[in-house]
């Protein structure tokens, strides 16, 4: 079946095998390779994308449910040499090590900051609780969110 969505602010028709096919598989088949598979059980957050601005684990999210909705993947943020504020903050604070969890982390951060540009540390921790990282110990990731929030605030 086909579904009509907006991916990264562009109208996009996605071919899906059936309503419940995981969104992750559909996105990756359509060459949005930024979302990563980490567990296929909705437990690690490496596959997080935003659907209408809310973070979802795309590995267990039925692609059919995105019909008529807006999907944001990591490809919808900055590009090399033209990073967005969150991505830049992640690099400057050392929040990226292996980078496998990074797309999901960055998108969960975006979902948080879009609705709350001055999060407390506890709010940051809660927002990123579904994104597992084994490299960083999360310290620098939380630093990155704080730095990005500071810059968000300046421009908003």
């Amino acid at each position: 079946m086909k579904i009509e969505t907006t991916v990264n602010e562009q109208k996009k028709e996605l071919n899906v095998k059936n309503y419940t096919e995981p969104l992750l598989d559909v996105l990756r088949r359509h060459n949005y390779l930024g979302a990563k598979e980490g567990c296929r059980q909705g437990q690690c957050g490496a596959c997080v994308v935003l659907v209408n601005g809310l973070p979802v684990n795309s590995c267990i999210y039925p692609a059919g449910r995105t019909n008529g909705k807006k999907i944001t993947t990591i490809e919808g943020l900055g590009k090399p040499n033209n990073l967005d504020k969150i991505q830049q903050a992640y690099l400057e604070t050392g929040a990226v090590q292996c980078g496998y969890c990074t797309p999901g982390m960055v998108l969960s951060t975006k979902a948080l900051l879009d609705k709350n540009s001055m999060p407390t540390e506890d709010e940051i921790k809660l927002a990123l609780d579904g994104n597992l990282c084994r490299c960083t110990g999360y310290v620098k990731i939380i630093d990155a969110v704080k730095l990005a929030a500071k810059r968000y605030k300046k421009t908003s």
Partner: protein
Amino acid sequence: MANTKFSQVGKSKIKVDGQALVTGQPVFVGDFIIPGMLWAKVLWSPHAHARIKKIDTSKAEKLPGVKAVLTYKDVPRIPFTTAGQGAPEPSPYDSFILDNKVRFVGDRVAAVAAETEEIANEALRQIKVDYEILEAILDPKNSRKKNAPVIHDEKEAHMPLPLKYDPKKNICAHIDIKIGDAEKALKESDYVIEHEYDIHYAQHTPIETHISTAYFDVHGRMVIITSTQVPFHVRRIVARSLNIPVQKIRVIKPRIGGGFGAKQEVLIEPLVAALAMKTNQAVCLKYTRSEEFVSSRCRHPQIINLKTGVKKDGTFSAIDMRILQNNGAYGSHSLTILCNTGSKILPLFKCKNVIFNGDVVYTNLPVCGAYRGYGATEGYFAMGIQLDEMADKIGVDIVNWCKKIHIKEGETSPVFAALGEGVEGVEQNISSCGLDKCIELGAKEINWYQKRRKKQTGRYRRGVGMVIMMQGSSIPEIDMGAAFMKMNEDGSFNLLIGATDLGTGSDTIMAQIAAEVLATETEKMIVYSSDTDLTPFDVGAYASSTTYLSGQAVIKTAQKVKEQILKVAAEMLKEPLENLKAEHSTVIGKNGKVTFSEIANYSLYTKHQHQIMAGESHITHKSPPPFSAHFGEVEVDTLTGKVRVIKYVAAVDCGTAINPISAEGQTEGAVLNGLSYALCERYIFNEKGKMLNPNFNYYKIFSTMDLPELKTILVPTYEPTGPFGAKSVSEIGINGPCPVIANAIYDAVGARLYNAPFTPDKVLAAIKKIAR
């Protein structure tokens, strides 16, 4: 201390691969989609120990879309080890790509390559296997018993080095070291403590599971794109296991999603290669999360019997450490992990009488392999708790006592020479040690003297604990790393290194080191690493070696390149070499200056044309230890037994931190992994040896909500044998949390825990035991 005014080193440069990673570019193995690529799936053993009597794949083969089904009948019967170590490996050759016997629940039975994953899974269901079920060993204490079943009864199993290996008795490694007369010294000690410590299984859980893709290039050579820490060992071991020449194989490591030792294992590459050969098509195999838990590799559980003797003046008279190590069903890293438990712990304490012995046994349980810390994590668990107990027994403050008992700069330990990587070690004097400063700063940061040994009542009680540690930097006289470099017209440089960046940032570290030598900027380096066709050799990312070892290879290479740059500049400026110096990508003489770009253009196009380039290798004669002191504060809920970490401080001496933010990141990542291991990570087995919790719901790893206040303190020293004074930092941090948390729990509630992890049930039982 040498000149520490650096322009590139000691700066928190942004990772050279950072932009690609943070924008989600297709840089991981799973992002390389090759047209027509097949998907592989593996049939796993449901039994802990069984022989395959009959296996019928005919139905599976007939399924439309199935391109290959492999069983033991279809692969060469060549024994090898999956341990990605130097050759010959000090691990037994006890593995086959597929075998007619299965040795744990989750062992391989057969493999399928098909057009889709769904078809491959369906094909697995169509394979019929008749098993002769054998008695299984599910407790390492039973492995050496008389009449125990023999797990490796195949005639091919052997150790490629002259080391003790006795598979008939289920012993895959053994060590026995005696220095001085520990038995006598123990008798003459004023204080003696002996206890047994039990430390558990765990999985690395890289967020990217094991994944490899193999295909044939236009020349018929096999290309393996794989998530590995050891690309050159992959090439050699695949060649051996399939009996094909090294020349026919190219291994490429792209970006990889974490390793932590799990990918120092040549685990799935031989199987993927076999499937590619059978189908003559590209094949990708990716472990599911559950397969990663059950069928990849784990930390080696150990039962450690530790006995220490101390004199009235607080000096150690003897240490007697005896270990029973469970390696699971195959012997990967068996001996070297065991050796490391001794060699990374015993030299830290000034002591002339040492007994260190142990057996590594096979069991019918998941297979162990390299895991960050590599035996030292296990050893410090025992030693760290016993130190705490001993300090109480002799009535000293452990913080002050630790300052007295540890090895100092200029000193040596007989253990260095006696114990190496499965063989004798290498003698060394400590040439840098900032441990006293680590202890001092760590104690201050945790506010030790305000918090220690406070009498408390009430439900929630707090306590603090500490430990001191060392690790190593590389394996002396064994490990080798190499680099190659060439100069381009615009004054940029290609830096080609075998060193394997598994997310640690080593590509960036190497760029900083090269730029420092060349008096240019890190940003001028184009780093390409870990491709067996294009980069020079490197043993890979393990044994805390990359910065220390491969970094020196980069220094040597850059120095040669610099000599060539100066020579061309001398010709251009018509000045003698001794007049010249390089600064800010420019060579300055007495009469003038030329930029690196001008020099490169001159050398490529103008006169005496040649490519400015060089390559160098490096081995080390020492393994200088980084040192660290860890301090932690916990709150114990005496009603439920739940332990919450309030604050954790890791003070670490890694010499010069080439990239401080990365060094902190290594420490924080290691510490949090260690805390998670100490408090909640565990394998739960049923009575048939099946792991019951292979997912993140029931095998909990720490998330942001579990993060305590975590403070890293880098204590700079200068290691004269390291690149710009650097030592290692990647592993040491994981060793602290187990003993620190155990000691802090004791400080809070007065109950000792000798069995990790410290889950609420165990903590509660320990509290109840002392209340009785």
